């Protein structure tokens, strides 16, 4: 059993309590316009190419056994159908302009990597977070992984967009100490427009999950121009009112990922902005008034 993983981040301190290792799975059913990790969206591997670092020296073109790279004007185009992800172009690039996103890991490999930091988990009351992309895509893999982590007595967290068959939640919930559950938009039309899918499954799953699991942190990305308004907050409060949820994370949008979109040769909307601090403070108070524990940021 293997999974496509694009990063195993050590000393991760914003994805759950303490010092953690976050495993980022590749592939997501949602395509959020503001996604910070665009390289996490596709299931398959991808090449990231930084045209600003590239000096068009041609090393990569020469070493590619599949002739997948060609020069067009002052940039390079990689034909992904031809690419075998052997990585010769990455190693030969003297400007570090090329990267591969995604690598196949076996369960043993992931376990070996995350167990390296167990002493830090113990001392900081941290653990391992599965994130992505959407980890629930790899249902058998993560079920087994979470089970093994619990056998090792390691705290586990799953960061999910909620868009999955509820059976998967049922299966993993007993091995999961904490869910980080994203809720993007309450308005379904807007949700479909900005993420590509309906929010009905997501909200239903949240309702059901909160009945069988008592440690769910709600994570709300807030983007000026899309969902950073009071009505949206009020709607969310309404949805979670009778649920067993105690903590809320407000995640203000930032445009740090802009360069990644360029490297993937994808467009990036310029209409999104970071919400002002006063607004965030206000929203924080709105949640706190209802008894939630709120943190701005992860």
């Amino acid at each position, binding site marked *: 059993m293997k999974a496509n993983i694009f990063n195993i*981040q*050590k*000393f*991760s*301190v*914003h994805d759950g309590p*303490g*010092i953690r290792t976050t495993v980022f799975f590749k592939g997501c059913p949602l395509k959020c316009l503001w996604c910070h990790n665009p390289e996490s969206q596709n299931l398959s591997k991808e090449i990231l190419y930084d045209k600003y670092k590239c000096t068009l020296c041609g*090393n990569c073109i020469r070493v590619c056994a599949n002739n997948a790279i060609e020069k067009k004007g002052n940039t390079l185009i990689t034909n992904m159908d031809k690419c075998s992800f052997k990585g010769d172009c*990455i*190693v*030969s*690039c*003297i400007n*570090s302009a090329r990267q591969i996103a995604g690598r196949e890991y076996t369960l043993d490999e992931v376990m070996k990597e995350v167990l*390296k*930091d167990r*002493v*830090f988990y*113990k*001392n*900081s009351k*941290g653990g391992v977070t599965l994130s992505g992309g959407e980890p629930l895509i790899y249902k058998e893999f993560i079920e087994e992984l979470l089970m093994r982590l619990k056998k090792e007595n390691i705290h586990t967290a799953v960061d999910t967009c909620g868009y999955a068959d509820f059976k998967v939640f049922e299966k993993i919930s007993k091995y999961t100490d904490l869910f980080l559950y994203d809720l993007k938009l309450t308005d379904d039309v807007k949700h479909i427009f900005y993420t590509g899918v309906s929010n009905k499954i997501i909200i239903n799953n949240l309702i059901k999950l909160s009945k069988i699991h008592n440690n769910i942190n709600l994570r709300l990305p807030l983007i000026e121009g899309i969902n950073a308004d009071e009505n949206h907050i009020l709607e969310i409060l309404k949805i979670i009112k009778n649920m067993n949820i105690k903590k809320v994370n407000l995640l203000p949008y930032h445009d740090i990922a802009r360069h990644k979109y360029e490297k993937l040769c994808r467009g990036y909307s310029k209409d999104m902005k970071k919400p002002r601090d006063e607004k965030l403070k206000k929203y924080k108070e709105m949640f706190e008034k209802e008894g939630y524990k709120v943190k701005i940021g992860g």
Partner: protein
Amino acid sequence: MRGYTERTKKLREISTNTQPSISLERALLETEFYEKYYGTVETPVLRALNFKNLMKKRKLYIGQDELIVGEKGEGPQAAPTFPELCCHTVEDMTVMNDRKYISFKVKEEDKKLQQEKIIPYWEKRSIRHKILESMTGEWKDCYAAGMFTEFMEQRAPGHTVADGKIYEKGFLDFKKEIEEEIEKIDFMNDPDAYDKKAQLEGMAISCDAIIIYGQRYAQYARELASKETNPKRKEELLWIANNCDVVPAHKPETFAQALQMYWFVHIGVTTELNTWDSFSPGRLDQYIYPFYKKEKEEGMIDYHKARELLECFWIKFNNQPAPPKVGITLKESGTYTDFANINTGGINPYTGEDGVNEISYMILDVMDELKLLQPSSNVQISVKTPDEFLKRAVEISRKGWGQPAFYNTEELIQELLNAGKTLEDARFGGASGCVETGCHGREAYVLTGYLNVPKILELTLNDGFDNYTGKQIGIKTGNPEDFSSYEELFDAFVKQLNYIIKVKIRGNNVIEKIFAKHMPSTFMSVLTDGCKESGRDYNAGGSKYNTRYIQVVGIATITDCLSAIKYNVYDNKRFTMGELLEALKSNFEGYAHIRNLVLNHTPKYGNDDDYADDIMLDIFTATRDIIRGRKTVCGGTYQIDMLPTTCHVYFGSVMGASPNGRLAEKPVSDGISPEKGADVKGPTAVIKSCSKMDHTSTGGTLLNQKFSPSSIAGEEGIENVSSLIRSYFELMGHHIQFNVIDKKTLLDAQKHPEEYKDLIVRVAGYSDHFNNLEKSLQDEIIERTEQAFN
């Protein structure tokens, strides 16, 4: 202005704003004395009488508002010279005066006195002269090539620390004990009886010397009091006089007298010789807390008064710049800091229980308030240490000037036990200088010099030839292009390593004898267990324990170099040894593809990657096993340390490009920290890699970890750093320290030094003003990886 009270604000201001200068007083008194008495008495007595003469005649200084008294020179920031060890030329003095960094002002008339009085007597009699005359051609070649440095070339062995005895006894008591030992000497059967008598007599005279010094201060304070018109100050001066009536002749009775006692001892040690690492109070909080507790219960002292006294005491350390250094000694230790290092926290050495007390917290408050370079302040963290104490220390450390540094109590004790000390003695152990471990008050643990391990690989790759000096320095181990396996290369490297260490130790053996014969330190001998009982000097192996350290530099650089060769040349055959050697010769110019492979696509130390870390272990083990356990000529044992001070910059400057992609003349790695930019997996991976070596088989390791301020903000930031420390120590790491400054700030400080006068950064086992560092060292600090907390 920093300072808890108006008084300490003023004293700190004087300490930090006075330009260091050379004081010739000591050199002149000593020369006059030697001209008269040399040859009339045995050497230990001569040295003791010389010390007594200095303590009797030197000018005294009681600064305005001072409460703790005594200076090494005529006043704050005046540095005496030690011509019996290193006789400076007039040119040396001009360099000291004119150099941009670590300068000492020298008066023109003093240069004249140096020329007319000091040089004629000491030029051919100084220890430095004797050492250089006695070294072999091989030693001199290696020294010139920067294969190693020599600590005793300009300064005396010291490297030790006070324990609790000076708070339990006065020097009259010590003198009495010494006289009893003299009585016990067996002239009928002991062939060393005559030598022992001379040594013990010298030690008794040294007790007189320090007692006289105290009496003179008492008298001087009364003199000033009689002229003082301000009644409050008059009372203070009389209070100082009363304290000096008690210490150092008798044991201290009050908190203030305890501090004054240590301070007189400190001045004594650093006047007798220019000992490396000056001298340190060691586990200060453990020794002075009982005085504070008693007086507090009696209503004689409160936090406020004790805090002010402690600040006065702290500022005294900062008043003493390190003895002026020149040449390679300046390069290996380019700083005013004299490495007095105070251990706070840890366990109570008498009971083994948690040692954190009210004074431990007060010391943290003082450190935080005064923000001084000296003394180097560290905390010992034990499994028994409360989180509250650890977190308070982290809170200060993350302000970004590297203090306090963190030491692991359990690991320190294990190191000492592994080196053959008893548990009782080990509990009185700690770190001093940078990170060196020893049993305080019981051991001479002398650092002998840094070893340039990366350059030993460079020699191996050139069949023993050194391009820097243009000479065959090493032995012939063959053309590396003929090596058919990595193992053959590693064997050749170990042969060169063995040879260079042999050259170093042969020199050490001679130097140890020179000091034992010509430079007994009878006062230090009074302070160290074993000397009195054995009738032998501190510098002649008289202490209860005797250790000589060689400090291994550049473990990360050498690891990454060997990893680069193993991975690319032998395992993956990406290029040949011949191509690599050509690339190194041309400093990678025209070899960008090779540099890219070794820099960016090769396993490196610092990432918790066993491929590289196993190579580190091979090098660490080989080096340690060649050095550790060898006997020294005066009956001690060799051990290794893994620390650089500023020597990694010097060692890099004598080297060409290296196989790990490091360019010619750039610094090598510091301590056991990863090579700059090589650690890409964050601080937990660094800690894991560093903890793979067996710290407890060394005498100390140094790990620098840099964070940007934003990454450790808030209460969570403190908790995360605390957890990192606890984890590293659970893995038996020895020491960790933090620089918390962003790159932007440092770059700006380089451009506008005038705007960053206060900027202090962690260099090696100490902190320094950023503006005092040479440009290359500044660059190196800027480049140290900024570990992101995401």
